[in-house]
């Protein structure tokens, strides 16, 4: 073993950073429920807007021959691929919404609004599918569920507020 080998083996294996790195790590790992909720809500809004725009365009009926439509004609394959892509994004947004934490009344309300929006969107979409595929309309149940979600969310938020008020009152008494 020569001198270079020995010096390399003796070289320090530890180094001290100039600043404390832990706060940066904690900050990166801290849950940011509001930001995640906003992202999920934005994803749902974009999807709902897309569905509404699609339904609006479909409601206008066929464009008269010789007049230019708002969009160039697209192949059925492109349109089917678009439906599949948007559907996947909807499912991904729902999965994100499902895994969100946060127990405050505001966060619970935001989540419930997300579920309600999701049910309204899926009900509208299923009606469109039923019309397009000439099926019996399967939407009544979904719309009813959206109403149930709304009612349950209101009750839950009220209960959370009451619970929080009771805890505050107890703390004041102490």
């Amino acid at each position, binding site marked *: 073993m020569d001198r*270079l080998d020995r010096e390399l083996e003796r070289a320090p294996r530890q180094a001290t*950073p*100039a600043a404390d*790195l832990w706060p940066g790590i904690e900050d990166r790992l801290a849950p940011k429920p509001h930001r995640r909720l906003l992202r999920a809500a934005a994803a749902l809004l974009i999807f709902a807007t897309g569905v509404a725009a699609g339904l609006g365009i479909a409601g206008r009926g066929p464009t008269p021959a010789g007049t230019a439509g708002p969009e160039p004609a697209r192949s059925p394959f492109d349109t089917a691929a678009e439906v599949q892509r948007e559907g996947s994004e909807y499912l991904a947004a729902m999965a994100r919404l499902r895994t969100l934490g946060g127990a405050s009344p505001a966060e619970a309300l935001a989540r419930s609004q997300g579920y309600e929006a999701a049910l309204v969107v899926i009900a509208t979409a299923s009606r469109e599918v039923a019309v397009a595929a000439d099926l019996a309309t399967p939407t009544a149940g979904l719309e009813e569920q959206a109403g149930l979600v709304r009612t349950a969310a209101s009750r839950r938020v009220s209960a959370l507020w009451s619970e929080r008020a009771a805890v505050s009152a107890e703390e004041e008494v102490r």
Partner: protein
Amino acid sequence: MSQPNSPPDPTGGDDDALVRRFRQGDHVAFRALYEFHHRRVFALALRLTASREEAEEVTQDTFVTAWRQRAAFRAEAAVSTWLHGIALRLCRQRWRGLLRRRRRDERHGRESYRQTVERAMPGARLDLEVALTTLPPRMRTAVVLHKVEGYTMAETASLMGIADGTVKTHVYRALTLLKQRLGDGSWTA
């Protein structure tokens, strides 16, 4: 694992319990692992990036990644080896940008690296540390992991994702280049 100048393990016999708690998502255990390992991760990142700022970012990213991937950690490997593996991958992702920056402002970079080493690693041989940063990234990685960190050839090969023979070649060439660059016959004595 041969690690002749490893610091004593402060967790002692509780290391397994600490790692188990970390894997279960215990923040206190995570903080304890950080306190014990971050200086070693930082030293490796500093030698591989030759930049204090980059090394600090790599160290933070290493622990953020470790926390997020804690369920994937297999207890049969040492935590330090696992953390070094993560840090190594993160350094690799930065090499292209680092090489560009060093070409642009090489002289200034070396001066500031020398100052960083003086502050961060008291007792380190500055000429040797600076000479290490002149090696091509793979050679530098191989010689730092094998000679400085004390990993065996097989462990170094596993961390780098290359064959043992390639590690041997990198280390041999790195040592030859270091001797040339240090420019002093006494290094071979």
